[in-house]
């Protein structure tokens, strides 16, 4: 960072003595520039910490809660350094922090995004400082009251304690503390040996609201004078309206307006604007709007680019891979030469279907826009991107756009986009009314930014000692960066040059081939890691089997001595082979890898390094007739220091099941006319409880390393471990995701 670190430290926090006598502490986050965190009043929560005179400690959580447990984890980090009394802590979501500086937006709260498992690492850096600073002020206030030095004051669970045993609660100290100038430098955070909250289990802070039904997601919010909008959209991104008859619609009681939404601008990135042209029905309530849409007589015409199905993309992949790669991602040694001289040679092709996000909460937005200000309440994972979309559409001043961050019903990458917010803002502007945009389940399936389709061509070779001497992984895929970045950068989301087995095999080549597609693509939980790990870890299993090697021993031999390999991508700068090997051993031990296996049961293993986390899965399966039974599932994870083990286990077990569910049956298909075939869960089956293992045994490796996050990490190795277990149990090797239809075809 260019800014002077020392200068920043001197001004590292803002303290406010609020009118109510509360101590309010905020942290200037990005670029070490101090920011006004509270604004002019206490009407809405602005700061990270507010201690009320009665001792209630309100902690603001800045990142979107998408089910990763960030509200709980962020509050625990801060409360730890504050020595707060957890039973007096209330956690409130913060809005997007933005002010105007010279006509430009200026972000005041630092990291505010749910993507790539980055919230926890960022919070670890920032929020410990906030908590420690607030604690220091309270301790200093106590020292002044007792006319002693701060060294004679300790703090425990919301109470300052003097050497002679006198005590003052934080609430009693809040006003005095708010009058103090913060120290010139950030107080040192605690030593890990002093932790009383970090590393201990904490239930989700919103749990009571959720189980009583009062937790409000964006879809549950409402304005008094709002019109509900439901949109029917053109099936093709480039197409437009051919004919519209809305007479029957306008007769529906409650329907007030029918409006059109133009086709998206092909020059603008997907996700920053509407995905397709549409006809919107605005009504007094959802049912009226839905009935209005059902009575529309609309014909659409295709424009440029009809989405193609996976079969056509598969053909295109074959053609592309016959030529030169779009990007030679990594070349070590000479793979062709190694192949020529090798004793054993292996080859396989894997194919991964396009999938949809299928969040239980569909996209949607509640917006109020006038010529002075805008208020946006929507499920958002990337509030700054949402803000930029709103700013472009409204032209409002930077500090006149308020983006709230409600808890979201999933996310998985879908809410990184702001197409649905753009729709709502356009309608609100045109109608001159506040708009509550509702997407139906069908809308969510047919107008998504899907996980890319990919074909993986793998080749490898081994010497007479059965050690791998060459490895080639070539991927053809419909990069999600197409339309967002220059073509030369499209490979970046699709293939990671330092992913294993890179650095473990002397002659190795990674190459990527661009596939064009008219289907919109976007981020997805664990992104291409979830796809590439399937191909790599299944292929390794095939090789071990062909070489008559134990799949665990073969992998451990490949990982070799514990050492740090350079890792340039997200999660780097290094990949520790020892940490990966360790989680693999743990998972294998827990599933009983080396013990006698039950007759007819197949065991499978896989591991992967994702965004700084080391995870291995082990599965035990059998086929009972036409039913797949997953008897046991183990997820061993080294994700650095774990802030909240209860939450981490939930997310890693959840990632495991989500990975299995997506891999087993999920697939988006495109008809000959370019329409998405799936419109509901019947056609796009998420796994049910009956299809999933009864439990996922999550093993967390104790670690002193910085926290790495957890949300993506449980996904990538789950599906290959399952496919490897299926092979072990049935001798059928599935080379496709989704696994289930192919398994049924082959069995």
């Amino acid at each position, binding site marked *: 960072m260019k800014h002077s670190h020392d200068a920043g430290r001197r001004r590292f926090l803002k303290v406010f003595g609020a009118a109510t006598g509360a101590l309010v502490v905020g942290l200037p986050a990005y670029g070490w520039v101090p920011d006004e965190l509270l604004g002019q009043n206490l009407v809405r929560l602005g700061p990270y910490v507010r201690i009320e005179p009665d001792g209630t400690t309100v902690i603001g959580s800045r990142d979107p809660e998408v089910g990763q447990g960030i509200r709980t984890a962020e509050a625990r980090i801060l409360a730890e350094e504050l020595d707060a009394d957890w039973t007096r802590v209330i956690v409130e979501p913060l809005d997007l922090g933005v002010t105007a500086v010279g006509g430009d937006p200026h972000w005041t709260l630092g990291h505010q995004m749910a993507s790539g498992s980055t919230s926890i690492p960022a919070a670890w850096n920032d929020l410990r400082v906030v908590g420690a600073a607030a604690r220091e002020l309270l301790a200093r206030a106590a020292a002044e009251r007792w006319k002693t030095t701060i060294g004679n004051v300790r703090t425990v669970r919301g109470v300052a304690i003097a050497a002679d045993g006198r005590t003052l609660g934080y609430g009693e100290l809040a006003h005095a503390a708010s009058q103090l100038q913060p120290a010139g430098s950030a107080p040192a955070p605690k030593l890990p040996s002093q932790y009383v909250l970090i590393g201990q289990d904490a239930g989700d802070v919103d*749990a009571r609201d959720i*189980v009583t*039904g009062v937790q409000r997601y964006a879809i549950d919010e409402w304005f008094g004078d709002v019109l509900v909008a439901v949109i029917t959209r053109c099936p093709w991104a480039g197409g437009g309206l051919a004919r519209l008859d809305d007479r029957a619609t306008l007769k529906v009681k409650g329907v007030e307006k029918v409006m059109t939404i133009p086709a998206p601008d092909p020059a603008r990135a997907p996700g920053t604007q509407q995905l397709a042209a549409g006809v919107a029905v605005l009504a007094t309530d959802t049912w009226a709007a839905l009935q209005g849409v059902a009575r529309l007589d609309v014909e659409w015409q295709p424009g440029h680019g009809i989405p193609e199905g996976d079969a056509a993309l598969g053909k295109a992949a074959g053609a592309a891979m016959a030529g030169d790669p779009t990007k030679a991602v990594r070349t070590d040694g000479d793979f062709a030469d190694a192949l020529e001289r090798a004793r054993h040679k292996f080859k396989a092709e894997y194919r991964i279907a396009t999938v949809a996000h299928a*969040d239980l909460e569909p996209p949607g937005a509640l917006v109020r826009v006038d010529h002075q200000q805008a208020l946006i309440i929507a499920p958002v994972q990337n509030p700054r991107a949402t803000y930029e979309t709103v700013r472009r559409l409204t032209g409002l001043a930077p500090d006149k756009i308020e983006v709230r961050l409600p808890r979201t019903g999933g996310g998985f990458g879908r809410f990184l986009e702001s197409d649905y917010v753009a729709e709502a803002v356009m309608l609100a502007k045109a109608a001159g009314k506040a708009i509550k945009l509702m997407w139906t389940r069908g809308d969510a399936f047919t107008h998504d930014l899907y996980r890319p389709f990919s074909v993986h061509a793998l080749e490898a070779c081994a010497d007479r000692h059965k050690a791998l001497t060459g490895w080639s992984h070539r991927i053809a895929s419909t990069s999600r960066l197409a339309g967002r970045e220059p073509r030369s950068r499209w490979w970046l989301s699709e293939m990671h040059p330092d992913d294993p087995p890179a650095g473990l095999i002397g002659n190795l080549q990674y190459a990527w081939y661009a596939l064009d597609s008219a289907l919109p693509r976007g981020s997805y939980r664990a992104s291409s890691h979830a796809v590439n790990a399937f191909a790599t870890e299944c292929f390794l299993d095939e090789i071990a089997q062909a070489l008559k090697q134990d799949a665990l021993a073969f992998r451990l031999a490949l990982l070799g001595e514990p050492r740090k390999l350079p890792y340039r991508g997200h999660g780097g700068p290094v990949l520790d082979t020892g940490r990966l090997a360790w989680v693999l051993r743990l998972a294998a031990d827990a599933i009983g890898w080396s013990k006698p296996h039950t007759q007819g049961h197949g065991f499978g293993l896989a591991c992967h390094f994702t965004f700084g986390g080391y995870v291995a899965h082990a599965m035990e399966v059998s086929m009972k007739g036409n039913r797949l039974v997953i008897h046991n599932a183990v997820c061993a994870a080294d994700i650095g220091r774990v802030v909240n083990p209860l939450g981490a286990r939930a997310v890693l077990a959840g990632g495991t099941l989500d990975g299995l*569910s997506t891999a087993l049956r999920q697939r988006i298909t495109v008809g000959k006319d370019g329409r998405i075939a799936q419109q509901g*869960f019947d056609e796009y089956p998420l796994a049910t409880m009956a299809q999933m293992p009864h439990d996922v045994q999550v093993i967390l490796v104790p670690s002193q390393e910085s926290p790495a996050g957890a949300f993506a990490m449980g996904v990538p190795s789950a599906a290959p471990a399952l496919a490897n277990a299926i092979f072990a149990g049935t001798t059928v090797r599935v080379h496709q995701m989704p696994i289930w239809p192919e398994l049924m075809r082959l069995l």
Partner: protein
Amino acid sequence: MQQTPQNPPASIVPEPIRSGIDLRINGKQFRHTGDPELPLLWYLRDVLRLTGCKYGCDDASCGACSVLVDGKLERACTLAMQDLDGHEVTTVEGLAARDGTLHPVQQAWIDEDAILCGYCQPGQIIAAVDLLSRKPRPSDKDIDGIGNLCRCGSYPRIRRAIKRASKAVQGKAK
């Protein structure tokens, strides 16, 4: 000042006594006078603002809108108001006691931290209440019969929460 009694203007005609669909929701009486085909889901969400009943789909496939009608599990998205005349609906908001004491199933959900994104959990809780009313000691196979979808993968904790709630109810009965 003296007010002179006024008759209403002739243009205002008294409405007849309105008829409608009478039903009880969480113990309170309601009368729906609008479209009889209105799905209960939208009556709860848009009219009463009982938003614990979630929208997830339109064909009863996900279970996010699960409610109890006369104690039996139903999906509010495909249940028309006209079929509810005289019936008793319980939503997730109606499970806890009036003093705020949670239903044993709600408490079990908290104790097992069966949350993740939480969007499907009100529906899962309703489905569990229904299961336990039919099978106080459900087997794993009974629990497998719950078809409510969870994208986040909270099923193992839901399973544990149901077993915990079952034990809690048994304990109370003794």
